[in-house]
Structure formats: C-alpha cells, structure tokens
C-alpha cells in the first residue's frame, strides 16, 4: 500500500456498492443550513457525521495526535487550523484511514462515520476512502489522462462503471465542481493542460464522481492564486449542501471565511473546537487567542 500514489487511495474497491444503487440514498440531502445558521445548540442535537474519540496517532515512536475528540456535523464546513506540524494533516488522514498507509504509522482511539467505527475489524479501508474522499494541497490530476478520464478514473479502476452511465456521472461531477462550463468543449484534452485552479476543481470532480459523503481537503488552495481560491471557497459553500466538508488550512482568514466550525490544534492536542464566528471573535482558550492574533513563541 505504501507505494501507491495518493490519488489511488481514494479509489473504491470492487466490494463497494455500485454507483446506481447509492443514488437513491444520497438523493435526499438535508436542506442547506448555511443561510439560516441555526443556533449552536441545535447543531449539536443533530447526530454528527464524523467523530473522533480519544484519537491518538504516531509515526514510529513519535506521537503526533494526543487523544483528540471532536464531532463533525453533517453538511457543514469544518476547518482545522494550527501551526505547521501540529498534526492537521495527520488528523485528516486518520479520518479516512490513510494514516495507516505510511510505514510505521499507527493510531488508537475511534473514528466513527455515522456512528460506525471505521477502524472496526472487517471494515474495508478502501470502501471508507470512497465514502470519505480527499483533495490534496497540490492539484494532482493523472498526467496521462484526459479531463474526462481523470474524472472517471476512480470509478473506472473499480470496474464498477457502466459505460452508459459514464457521461452522465462525469458531467454531474464536473458541474458540482463548478468546472463544466469551462471544460465541456475540451473533455479529451489532458487534465494537466488546465490552469492550477481548474486542476484543483478537476481533482474535486474526481473525488465527487465516486459519490463520497465526506470530503476532506488538505490545504486545497495553498498553491492557488486569490481568484482560483475564491472559486474553490465558493464551491465549498455550495458543496456543503450535499457533503460534509473538512478543510485543513494554515490560512486563518480562509478558515474564518469558509467554515461553520473551527478546530484549533496545537502540538497534536485539540485546544478548542467551536462555532467559527465565536472562535475568531472570542476564543475561550488563551492559546487559541495567542495563535489567531499572531502571538507566537
């Protein structure tokens, strides 16, 4: 597993439910909560989409997550912030069992998707990575593939893709990723012929094509210019109607712009997790305060 390119890690396994069967259950999404912004109390009453319970993680002997517990609500954008090296990416990668693909890496504690322990015996990590997709810092389309094939690559590799459904799935994914308008006339061109921002949206389309429920994004805009960044941020807002989004960002202003709640990690410890509006105006913990106001060391 360790030598696999990261793109391939989110590919569904042959044991996964066929795409057409999952359509119905996916069709009924919760109404968008962004506009109404219900009080935090109500958010808590909804059952969370993804939870970490006492999650610790190691690389060899080095512990990089310290008993992190948090509940990520469905159909919201949750941001994870913190200084570089504090364990943001590791936390994200524990959420879809990618952490364990690194030699010598391990984790303890629980991660639950809709209440089900994703680390339980018998759970197929490949299926988990399909339900919990990932987008990386650097856009990484398959260099040899066309735009069309890039979008479909995840499904293709499973052998699940029915030929007659392919075009529809591709179009839907590209529309959801807000890229369709720009590429519909050039679907056969290589994915890497696109601009950086478009490539990142192509990667989002590729992740969406397998119909995940959760989308993990690890600093998805750090290689992009402000306009491409604004497009991705706008996209995150609209995608949160259907998907649960977790974004790691080192950019606090971005976390403040895009997220409903924010988690602040420091040296592997979850210092504070709360409504974004509150955390960035009146954080509870002095360590959060010092970090977000730029008082380091």
């Amino acid at each position, binding site marked *: 597993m360790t030598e696999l390119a990261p793109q391939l890690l989110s590919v569904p396994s042959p044991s996964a439910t066929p795409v057409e069967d999952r359509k119905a259950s996916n069709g009924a999404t919760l109404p968008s909560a962004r506009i109404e912004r219900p009080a935090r109390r109500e958010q808590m009453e909804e059952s969370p989409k993804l939870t970490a319970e006492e999650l610790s993680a190691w690389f060899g002997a080095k512990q990089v997550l310290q008993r992190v517990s948090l509940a990520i609500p469905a159909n919201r954008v949750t941001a994870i912030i913190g200084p570089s090296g504090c364990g943001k990416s590791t936390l994200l990668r524990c959420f879809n069992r990618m952490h364990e693909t690194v030699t010598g890496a391990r984790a303890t504690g629980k991660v639950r998707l809709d209440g089900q322990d994703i680390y339980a015996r018998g759970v197929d990590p490949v299926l988990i990575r399909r339900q919990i997709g990932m987008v990386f810092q650097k856009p990484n389309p398959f260099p040899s593939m066309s735009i069309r094939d890039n979008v479909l690559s995840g499904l293709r590799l499973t052998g699940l893709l029915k030929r007659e459904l392919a075009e529809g799935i591709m179009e839907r994914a590209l529309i959801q990723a807000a890229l369709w308008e720009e590429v519909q006339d050039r679907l056969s061109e290589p994915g890497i012929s696109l601009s950086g921002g478009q490539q990142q949206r192509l990667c989002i389309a590729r992740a969406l094509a397998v119909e995940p429920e959760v989308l993990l994004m690890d600093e998805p805009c750090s290689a992009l210019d402000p306009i491409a960044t604004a497009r991705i941020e706008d996209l995150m807002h609209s995608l949160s109607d259907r998907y649960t989004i977790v974004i790691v960002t080192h950019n606090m202003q971005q976390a403040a712009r895009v997220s409903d709640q924010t988690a602040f990690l420091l040296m592997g410890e979850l210092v504070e997790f709360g409504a974004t509006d509150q955390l960035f105006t009146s954080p509870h913990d002095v360590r959060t305060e010092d970090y977000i106001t*730029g008082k380091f060391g």
Partner: protein
Amino acid sequence: MTKAHTDREFEGELQELRNQLLEMAGRVESMIADSIRALVQRDSDLAVRTIEADNRVDRDELEADDLCLRILARRQPMASDLRFITLALKMVTDLERIGDLAVNICERAIDLNQEPNLKPYEDIPRMAGVVQSMVREAIDAFVTGDVRKARAVVERDDELDELYHRVFRDLLHLMMKDPSGLERGIHIQSVAKFLERMGDHGTNLAEQVVFMVKGKDIRHPGRLEGENG
C-alpha cells in the same frame, strides 16, 4: 495584555491606536470640565475656546477611524484584536458626540452669561462631575481591561438620571413661580439634558469595554438570543 504580537509593526499600530484613543478621551474630558466652568464661572471666553477645541476632537475621530480601517484592511485582526478595533471605532463616535454636547453647553453658557444668574448652580456641576468621572473610569477600565470598573460606570448612569430629573423639577418650579426666568430656565434645562446624554455615551463606552475584554455583549440583555431562537 497577554503576549506581544510577533509582528512588531502590527503591535506598534495597535499601540498607536490605543494612544490616540487615550489622548482623545483626555481632550473630551477637559471639554466637559471647561464647558461647565464657562457656565458656572460665567467665563464666555473659556466657552469660545472650548468650542474651538472641538475641532481637534473631530480630527481625532477621523484619524482614529482612518487607522482602524488601515489595520482592518492590512492585518485582518482576529479575536481580542478584532474586538479592540470595533471598540475603537465605536468609542471615537461616542467621544466625538460628547465633545459636540460640550460645545452645545458652551453655546448655552454664552447666552446665559449675558443675563443675571437665575439661581446658583448646584446640581449641574454635580452632574458634570458624575459625567466626567464616568468617562474617566470608562477609559481607565479600557486601559486596564477592568470589567468590574466598566460595569460600575454603567451603574452610575442611574445617579445621573436622578440628578437630571431633580434639576428638571426644580427649574419647573422656579419658572412657574417667576415667568421672567422662563428663557434662562429653558437654557439651563437643556444644559442638564446635554449632560444626561453625555452620560448615555459614557455608558456606551463602558459597555464596549466589557465587550472588548469579555467578548460578551452586555447591551440590550437577551436581545440577540431572542432574535436567534
């Protein structure tokens, strides 16, 4: 108040803003004192000088606003820094309004000083004393981040309201007894009203300090929750 900002230029800008606010508050405080002195000591020259001093306070407001906008645009401040900037933006408005009210008092003083005293001023200087100490304490609370002091200021507003009503009743009584004092009575009553309004701005200042320190809004209790629920 906790650690210093890693970016020292940013730290310097916040310090500069704090100093601007303190200087402005100091100027406003003396305007209150001078306007009442101009009235009680029948010193119309002082009234004129105080009216002129208000130009400086107006400029203070513009300068502080300008600095706040610059910091917002360039630093995108967060948490207590953000609360400090929003506080500063509101504080200068309140301070500037207090300055305007002192000008209004001076204008009345100039009119009143041309006539014999209707009666010795007692409660008016008392009111001015309360207002001055409200402003001073609010600014003190701001500098030291002292929430308790700020809350105490909010409570003093009742004292001021009481004095105002007493002045009003006394004047009414006088004017009914002797209608020749009507015009002077109305002027004095406006002075009391101006002082009472200064007290409201002082209360605002103090409430904003609580917000800056605690991140909690104590104005209009219960309103935000009610609107959300």
